[in-house]
């Protein structure tokens, strides 16, 4: 890992990690390590997930019954917990995505080219 690469990585906003996990699990049940890898990979390694912080988020989602956990075996024959979306979690994903879209639109409008010219 080079220094340049590290500088380009962005810390996650609070609460967005939940959304990312839910979105990732939409493709099917995964274990923790796979979720971390998927988020990194799909964001072209821009989003830096401190892998440890994934776990409190997973537990929080389980407690809210948005995802469930089940024991299983990983691709290289290790025992691991597989996390899956519940129906409640699927509904929540729609809600959260909508919210995020709204927020993103609002922020990009403010940061849009017109504003920058004025500054």
């Amino acid at each position, binding site marked *: 890992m080079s220094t340049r690469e590290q500088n380009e990585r962005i810390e996650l906003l609070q609460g967005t990690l939940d959304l990312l996990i839910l979105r990732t699990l939409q493709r099917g049940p995964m274990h923790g*390590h796979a979720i971390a890898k998927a988020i990194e990979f799909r964001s072209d390694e821009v989003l830096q997930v*401190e892998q440890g*912080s994934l*776990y409190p988020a997973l537990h929080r989602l389980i*407690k809210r019954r948005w995802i469930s956990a089940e024991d299983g075996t990983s691709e*290289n024959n290790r025992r691991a917990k597989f996390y899956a979306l519940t129906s409640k979690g699927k509904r929540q994903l729609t809600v959260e995505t909508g919210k995020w879209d709204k927020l993103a639109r609002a922020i990009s409008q403010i940061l849009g080219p017109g504003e920058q010219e004025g500054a």
Partner: protein
Amino acid sequence: MTKRKRMLADLERDIREHLEMETQDNIDRGMSKGDARHAALLKFGNVTRVKEQIWEVWSVVWLEQLLQDVRFGIRTLLRSPGLTVAAMMAIALGIGINVGIFSVLNGLALRLLPVPRAQELVSVNQVLHFQGRGDRQIHNGENWFSYSEYQDYRDHNHVFTGLVAYEPYIEANLRDTDVRQVLGTAASCNYFDVLIEHPSQGRGFVDSDCASRGANAVVVVSDDLWRGKFASDPSLVGKKIVLNQTAYTVIGIARPGFTGTEPIPSAFWAPLTMQQALEPGVDRLSEDNMSWLALLGRTRPGVTMEEVRADLGVIAGRIDQSHAGPRRTTSLAIHAGTFFSSPEERSFLIPVASVVLGAFALVLLIACANVANLLLARASVRHKEIALRLSMGAGRWRLVRQLLTESLLLSLAGGTLGSVIAFWSFVRIMQLVTSHLPHDFPPLAVNVAPNLHVLAYALALSLFTGIAFGLVPALRTSRLELNSAMKGDGTQFGTAKRSGRFLLGTLVGSQVAVCMVLLLAAGLLLRGLYSAQTIDPGFEMKGVATIFLNLEKQGYDPAHATLFRQRFRERIKGLPGVIEVAEAECAPLSHDFSGSEFAVSGRPETVPIEYNHVTPDYFSLLGIPIVRGRDFTPTETHAAPRVIVTESTARRLWPGQDPLGKAVREISGREYTVIGVAKDAQVAHLGQLDANYLYFPAGTEDDSRSYVLVRYATGFTEVAKSIREAGQSIDPGVSIDATRLEDYLEVWRAPSRIVAALSGALGGLALLLCSIGVYGMVSYSVSRSVRDIGIRMALGADGAKVMRHVVWQAMRPVLIGATIGAALCAAVSGVLSSMMFGLGTHDPIAFIGMPVFLLAVALAATLIPGRRAMRVDPIVALRCE
């Protein structure tokens, strides 16, 4: 395993697996083993912190916050020990007396009977309604059953494993070396088996004991009787004892502590079939229309109260159908078996209990108001702390919760302390009360020890108290103006201060109002007691002894009774120190009354009048003058158609006419001629001077049951002893018990004395709490307005003026509260006066004296802290803030 537990248990493994996967990935990318592991750890972040965060996710927030609040609350309370102790004492006092009085009521009415598996026992009672005139005979309990009804219920129900019937309170003379009266029970022969009360020695009854009437003279004696009367004779079982002239074989001695199923302990149990031998001359077993048997059933396992009602209801309906005479409907009252479970007893106990509990709850309310005041005063000191919390983002609800936790801690601690003291002291208080009852009151088998009911009541009361005194201060404290509070100008002039003062005033005012109600009630009761003590009953009761002769119950037949009575009177007349002897059917104020309907010439309707049968010496012995006409002559007996009326009776029946020679007629048609008029005297009911009353000459008909009155000149003890000896020289088996006539007066006074003492103590307690409240309010407001006072004084007000201001501020809510309290009490005093003898509804002395007393105490409580305001040095006051 819960989800929470499973997730936390697998946590270590999940993290380890994750790290190994990442390490493997790194190795696959070509890192060395050591580097790969290091990089994986780096990427994962702080393992310990991750674990902590996960624990946080799963922690139960409210519980942890509660623990936090409790810890913080304890620290806060300990930081101001003076206030904490004061508040705790007030609560302990309030809750303690409430729990104490509840434990007494619990022992009387809620506690199950003291027998094994008492929760299965139900008490069966009936209320009979007759169409038109009912003619039911009642002995002991109007809700009880006849023998044939009992047999019907016993043999045809499907809900009980056994149904017992018993007749309690049978007076019996136990003859041994001397004669003693004891109270016993006639019980069905399944009594001990159904109650699971196997005697500690010998046996209980078996069915054959009840096989035929009057045949099986066996008896089980109580442990008390065995120890007291028979000196724990180890060979008593098998011996014979004599009860009411019949010899019984002792077959068993009851378990220690088993005193029967009525509040007054039973000394012996005999088979129900022996009833006629126990009560000679009365055959209750054959009388189908008499209520005399109490019923207790033990339910089969799993049978509900509803099923019992339904099943017995069918039997009741069938009995009603076959009942001869006026149409009868029975409604059954079925309750858990307690000492007071018949409708008759409940209808008496429930209003009395609610008045008592209400009065005690009022004292608790005063205590609550006091503690609320204390907390409000402290809240002002904590303004800064609260403001800091609010400004750092604490929610209001969260703050209220924390403050309520504190007050609940206080109330629970106070409640525990109070309950412990109550449990310990009320057993002794009960002993004190019972030892002050008149001597012929039987002891009560009431267990005041705490049980689940009492503990639940204590807990509920503590929680209620905590919320009652904590809520208002908590809501108020958490509603702060941050700016002024943070700036620390504790003066809070303006609106906040005025609303605070209003709140304090309301609290103190309601305290005073409640206190006033209690004090006025106590005052009325004390006045009632005073009038009861000083009342002139209209006859001379000093130096008179009475002997109650109930020869029928002692096993005499009428002929023997007449003989005994004549010889007894002759013997007494000859005794040294005896001046006069008379006899009457009812002794004055003995709670023995006879009354009937009488027809009077010239009046269409009959008049209910109480009457007495007396010998000629009755009037002179009691010092009741005959104001017109003449006394009876010794030869005039019951057969003579003569009657003496009282002045009031004469005035009412024949207004403006000469009563002599007028006639009164019994319902039977028998006519009596008035031969004299006696002065009014309160011989039947204390407090009723002018009731209608008739005196008939005494005759042989009432010989089995009468009072002998003896006027004596020497000491009572010697006379009583020689009277007893005189009786026993005629018949060694007779029980003669002489009492002072004055003692009858005690029986009338005892209820008002006990209630007056109780309410006096309560009123005093309320006054103490209330004056602490007033004192607290004034000293708080003085300390809060030191600057205010300083300015006034700097502007030229003198001490007296400041003092007047302070006192007026404090006395305003007191006056308002006192007025409301007095009005309330005036409204409810009618209830009190109907319950107690000799009570005036609006007794002026009580209604003026008590408010003046209360206001004087309140004024004193104001003046002490008020003096501090007078001594305020304006310079110090202005500088200190």
